[in-house]
């Protein structure tokens, strides 16, 4: 039953990805000003949205770990696994944003990169979560999980700053397409394509987030079993 459910989920995900790609390349109208290169938006924006969501999951996991670490160890470990999964998959999506963005910028602006508020705060966000992953990779013990949780909480504070950056400051990056006030918005034919791709990347993202969570939970159990074995050997 579990295998059928997973197989069905994978099939729906793949169908959505193919449909999203078809919509982005063949159905969405060409942008009047930017032309074909505008189609990058259908991968760039959903990737940023999914990255923000997963950093929020990492924030919840980090808070959960700090809340449960002295009381309920089982819940603390589950929270920690969610914190790690959210941060790692979030970094994957944020990497997509930071590579597709310059490719788009080179054609639209004539430059690969500029140190404006949106781009810089996104790079800082990526660096914070990469440092979070490096901390988890190279430090060990329960202290590491606490330090990582604190770093995860501080990292998440950058998410609203990234989101608001092109509202608070004048940036090279375009103004917000949605909720950006007067003059913002998108042609309805493009909105539906963006929504399909948003859905497809969310479903895909949740799949790899779940996979990462399962792998981390297994890792925690292996480490706990090894520690128990070492403890038994010393008695």
């Amino acid at each position, binding site marked *: 039953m579990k295998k059928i459910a997973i197989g069905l989920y994978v099939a729906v995900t793949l169908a959505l990805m193919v449909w999203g790609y078809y919509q982005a390349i063949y159905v969405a109208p060409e942008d009047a000003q930017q032309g*074909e290169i505008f*189609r990058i938006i259908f*991968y*760039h924006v959903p990737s940023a949205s999914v990255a923000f969501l997963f950093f929020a999951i990492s924030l919840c996991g980090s808070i959960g770990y700090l809340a449960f670490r002295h009381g309920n160890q089982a819940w603390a470990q589950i929270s920690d696994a969610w914190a790690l999964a959210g941060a790692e*998959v979030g970094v*994957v999506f944020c990497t997509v944003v930071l590579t*597709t963005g310059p490719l788009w910028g080179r054609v639209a602006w004539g430059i690969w990169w500029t140190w404006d508020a949106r781009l810089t705060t996104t790079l800082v966000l990526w660096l914070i979560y990469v440092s979070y992953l490096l901390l988890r990779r190279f430090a060990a013990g329960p202290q590491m999980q606490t330090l990582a949780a604190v770093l995860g909480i501080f990292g998440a504070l950058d998410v609203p700053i990234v989101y608001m950056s092109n509202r608070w400051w004048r940036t090279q990056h375009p103004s917000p397409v949605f909720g950006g006030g007067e003059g913002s918005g998108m042609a309805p034919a493009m909105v539906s394509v963006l929504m399909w791709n948003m859905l497809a990347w969310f479903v895909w993202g949740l799949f790899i987030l779940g996979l990462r969570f399962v792998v981390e939970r*297994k890792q925690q159990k*292996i480490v706990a079993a090894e520690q128990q074995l070492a403890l038994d050997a010393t008695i």
Partner: protein
Amino acid sequence: MDHPNPHQFLVAAYCVTWAIQLGYVAWLTFKWRAQKRAKG
């Protein structure tokens, strides 16, 4: 590179996206299989 070809850049962006995503899934699958082997 003075006049970048938009089509090439669009293809590059889509390919890079999938390379990153599938590369990560491959690494995750490798890690998962290694765990299974260790458990066995």
